[in-house]
């Protein structure tokens, strides 16, 4: 019989015996046990599974749930998500798994839900491994994690503090072209950035995004329908996702992140090379993130980002491959989780030809990157417009 769904099937199941209480275990333990059972049932090894759908975990892991679960499981999926639909979460996972498989992002998706139960335990947030094994030593918050990544990059390649600071200076320069940016009217050069207070060495205050309030929204529809709208459709040509860990101590590499395979997949789907991309809209929570992304995108060899940036002519709209023309989050401000969406919105403006005062000439394609947790959750998109 013909149907409109992709041809997928359920090949394994696992189930735990219900318990009134589960003293001493956490939700992660239960999720891993039941997942191992489903994998055995399907005759799969852990490494055969490349997609992960999980439920929300109130009271244990409030954020970065798929990365925390994947790290606990020893998985590095190419598609990871939370499905948060109450009692419909399970069925909701099944079609999302099919959609992800049909979209070419993964082959085998683990869909898992579960919870521990201890009525006397306070439902305080954050009792996950990153909380248990990092915080007691004086390491909490993203600044510490990115400082550790940056120190490792510096030690491996001998890059100077000024090499990284030029990324913050470039972002600030672009912010001068965007009246919406929090740092519009406030440029900062490399000297000023290096003179700002050290927060967690080697990260200076002005190499870190400023938190702001804000919001971003994007409408996705079919190309046909978009063609009937007022603007030139900005098409999705490729996507790539990769989740490697949650806590920085568990990173498979400190100098190269999951954006490397995510960007490669997105470019492959788009049938483009990184040299073909007209605009680089790169997630920039910290200077080190842009440095690592330039290298992971294959724009230059590892450790060579600073030379590449100089040869590129900086980051502005006149550069060979302009970067973060809205100022990036380093220049625009970081409206919490909407900060990552600013890179999508700016790419759409550039591709429509509507980036007044900072328009890139002949902008036909853009690479957008998103990054989460400790350089551990990565998504890359290739967007483009028809000539």
């Amino acid at each position: 019989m013909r149907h409109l769904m992709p041809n997928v099937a359920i090949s394994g199941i696992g189930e735990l015996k219900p318990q009134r209480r589960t003293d001493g275990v956490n939700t992660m333990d239960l999720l891993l046990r039941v997942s191992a059972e489903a994998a055995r049932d399907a005759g799969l090894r852990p490494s055969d599974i490349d997609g992960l759908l999980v439920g929300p975990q109130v009271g244990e892991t409030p954020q970065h749930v798929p990365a925390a679960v994947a790290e606990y499981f020893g998985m590095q999926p190419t598609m990871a998500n939370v499905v948060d639909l109450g009692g419909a979460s399970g069925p909701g996972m099944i079609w999302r798994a099919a959609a992800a498989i049909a979209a070419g992002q993964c082959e085998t998706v683990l869909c898992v839900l579960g919870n521990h139960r201890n009525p006397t335990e306070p439902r305080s947030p954050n009792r996950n491994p990153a909380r248990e094994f990092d915080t007691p030593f004086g390491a909490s918050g993203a600044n510490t994690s990115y400082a550790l990544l940056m120190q490792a990059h510096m030690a491996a390649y001998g890059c100077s503090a000024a090499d990284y600071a030029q990324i913050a200076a470039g972002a600030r320069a672009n912010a001068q072209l965007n009246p919406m940016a929090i740092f519009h009217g406030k440029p900062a050069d490399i000297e000023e950035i290096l003179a700002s207070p050290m927060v967690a060495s080697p990260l200076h205050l002005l190499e870190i995004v400023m938190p702001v309030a804000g919001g971003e929204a994007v409408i996705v529809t079919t190309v046909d329908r978009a063609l009937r709208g007022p603007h030139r459709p900005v098409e999705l040509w490729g996507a790539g996702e990769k989740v490697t860990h949650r806590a920085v101590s568990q990173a498979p590499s400190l100098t190269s992140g999951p954006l490397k395979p995510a960007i490669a997949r997105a470019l492959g789907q788009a049938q483009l090379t990184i040299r073909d991309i007209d605009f680089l809209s790169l997630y920039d929570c910290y200077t080190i993130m842009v440095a690592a992304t330039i290298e992971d995108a294959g724009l230059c060899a590892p450790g060579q980002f600073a030379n590449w940036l100089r040869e590129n002519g900086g980051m502005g709209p006149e550069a060979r491959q302009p970067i973060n023309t809205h100022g990036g989050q380093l220049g625009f401000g970081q409206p919490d989780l909407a900060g990552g969406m600013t890179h999508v919105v700016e790419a759409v403006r550039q591709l429509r030809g509507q980036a007044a005062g900072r328009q890139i000439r002949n902008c036909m394609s853009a690479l957008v990157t998103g990054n989460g947790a400790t350089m551990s959750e990565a998504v890359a998109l290739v967007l483009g417009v028809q000539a």
Partner: protein
Amino acid sequence: MTVDLANLSVPGPTANSLTAPFWQAAEAGRLMIQRCCACDKWVFYPRAICPHCWADALEWQTASGKGRLKSFSVIWKPGHPGWIAATPYVVGLVELAEGPTMLSHILVQANDVAVGDPLSFASTNIGGRILPCFAREAT
């Protein structure tokens, strides 16, 4: 570092019955981590079953306590206010000789630390709890 770490008022581990052997061993001056009897790999942080092969075959073993500093940061503005009194202090990623990496407090001067430094396990009182920290290995 100008204060006695023992006097800090800072958050401690959120241990449970699965992870308690790690913290209890540190209190007793030993570094214990798990090893999988099925695939022979060392595991950190503690799990219920092996994250490498998903076998239910983990056992606790005493680690050598030797490691190498993979990266570090001198913290001037801590994420938790209880740590302000201890600034500047050093946290780092310690690659254990057995393979896994753990984050820890590194007992060195902020101006005398480098990636690659050899380290050894040093149980230390932080905020009234004995925690598994590391110091530079005596040469």
